[in-house]
């Protein structure tokens, strides 16, 4: 098999299509990725002396929080319909981390804010990769594709 067939679903007919809940999840993890990567950009703009960068950083933080919460809800649907639990637990972990990140930022605890921010962006990227790597088909019974 070549690389293209592994990534392009139409070339792999044995694999069933992704469920609607999976598509919503993919949309959200993509938005999460964009918002997550924008945060250090706003922080850099702010620390370079552009006061407005701070307002953008706060808007970005709110956005990441809302996306995270929505992602938890959709991941719960994925858990039920696709019978995959990892998106739920990963989304929950990211949102808990993002909450700590928000508070650390408000408190000015940069010793926590910087490394946690890097970790969160890594986590967001990992979840993005995992959500798009394999189809998320609807399963009515417990079927383990990787078993």
């Amino acid at each position, binding site marked *: 098999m070549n690389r293209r067939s592994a990534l392009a679903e139409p070339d792999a007919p044995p694999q069933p299509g992704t469920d609607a809940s999976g598509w919503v999840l993919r949309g959200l993890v993509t938005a999460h990725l964009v918002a997550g990567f924008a945060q250090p950009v706003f922080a850099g703009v702010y620390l*370079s002396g552009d006061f407005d960068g701070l307002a953008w950083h706060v808007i970005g933080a709110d956005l990441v929080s809302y996306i995270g919460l929505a992602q938890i809800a959709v991941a719960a649907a994925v858990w039920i319909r696709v019978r995959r639990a990892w998106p739920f637990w990963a989304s929950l972990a990211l949102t808990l981390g993002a909450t700590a990140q928000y508070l650390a930022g408000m408190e000015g605890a940069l010793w926590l804010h910087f490394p946690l921010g890097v970790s969160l962006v890594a986590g967001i990227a990992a979840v993005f990769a995992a959500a798009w790597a394999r189809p998320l088909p609807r399963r009515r019974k417990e079927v383990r594709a*990787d078993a």
Partner: protein
Amino acid sequence: MPDVNLPVTRRRMLGIGAGIGFVAAGGLALSTGWARRPAETGEVLRSEVPLPQAFSVPLPIPPVLAPIQSTPDGERYELIQREAEAEILPGFTTRLWTYDGVFPGPTIESRRGRPVTVAHRNELPVPTVVHLHGGRTPAASDGYPTDLVLPEGWTGHDGHHMADDRAQVTNASREYGFPLDQRAAMLWYHDHRMDFTAPAIWKGLAGMHFVRDDVEDALDLPGGDHELPLMVADRAFDAEGQLAYPALDPTLTGEHGVEEPYVAGVLGDVVLVNGAPWPEHEVDTGIYRLRLLNGSNARHYEFEAVTDEGRTLPLVQIGADQGLLAAPVEHQRLPVAPAERYDLLLDFGEVPLGSGVRLVNRLGTGRTAEVMRFKAVRPGQRAPIPQTLADDLPSWDRSEAAQVRDLAFRSGRMDDGRHGWLVDGLPFDPARTDVTARLGDVEVWRLVADVHHPVHLHLVGFRILSRGGGDPLPHDAGLKDTVSLRPGESAEIITRFEGYRGRYLFHCHNAEHEDMGMMANLEIV
């Protein structure tokens, strides 16, 4: 090449996840263990002599300077800047640079609108220049860093590394004229020489200056021996008991700046109050007015008054850098940055006789966590704390602002490639005008910091509109001339440029930052 279409095993996925998690947790643990919590900008210079027991020496009160001449047009004072010796640590004689032989320098008492002239004579081995911090002073007497008073027979160059065509250099002496048409406030005077302000202040060139007015008099606040000027400043001592300072050139005549580890600021391990290490002061059980100045080069404090029983007494703030507040603000803990002043009332009414109240520093560790102690020895008079204070505070509104400026205070490289501190990406240059403001204009400045930067404006007081995009903190109340920015923090300040035209400054009042570039010109036209 492995078959990329093979399903990723659950075990492998968990392994990758665990790996990322392990690295992230490791980074967080490293940061938790390594980073200073709370953040501290600067490096501690350790003393090489045994340090005295806390609360074993009495609190000195600097002498009030008597005028040489008093006329209907104001007072005239004379001060001699000279080397002097003092016993700061018991058993050691420490050489200091002083105003009139004492550290802190003599206190000047003045009244609003009564002009004060201070003739300074420089008998120190280096050029000097005096700035009255918080003074509404014409530019010619504001102590611009290149307006040097050269020592008699000075043959060196001006001591600083940049040319300045506008510098007003004098030999041996200079008269500074202060109209003092400003609100009652605690000001302080200190050396402001280009490139060498930090070591000059460290060596002792600082004193307090009070302005009084009718608004303050009407409040009948504690006075006399119930009003205590407190200059808190940290220092470090070498093995001989002399002041230690990590200057690149210990003669303070050539290369400026400090050794690399101290570039973020020099912190001492001895806390002096009015020049005495961790002093004790006997009080009665009445209310005292504390006129607190952080005269440290770089150390921030968070003050708390704690009784011997461990109870916290409220610090009731009645004034800020530029005078009285509209109403008192009560603090359990009060953060104070270098150059800030706080006017506080402290009520010893509930303190049992013979018992004490320690003024502690919650940002300190070890010996720097202690500041001084008050010991109640006599019964005193209780008095109510007035609930309304001054009604003469200026109120400026954003909508009046003719200009909104963003200014960044952060680290960077100076012209010579050395590490330094920059305002909007540039190190200080006397020849460059950084901000031009019109006399009478209201402006909003939005200041952004990378690490701690206490930002000070000459000439004017300002109000703090916001901090970190949100509301100001309780201790931001009133009229200020120095705003303490914490790491990654920003503040919006508003002021009206009033008083005088001319060349002024704004700068970081971490004195090491100031010497290493973090200063800029403010031209009022």
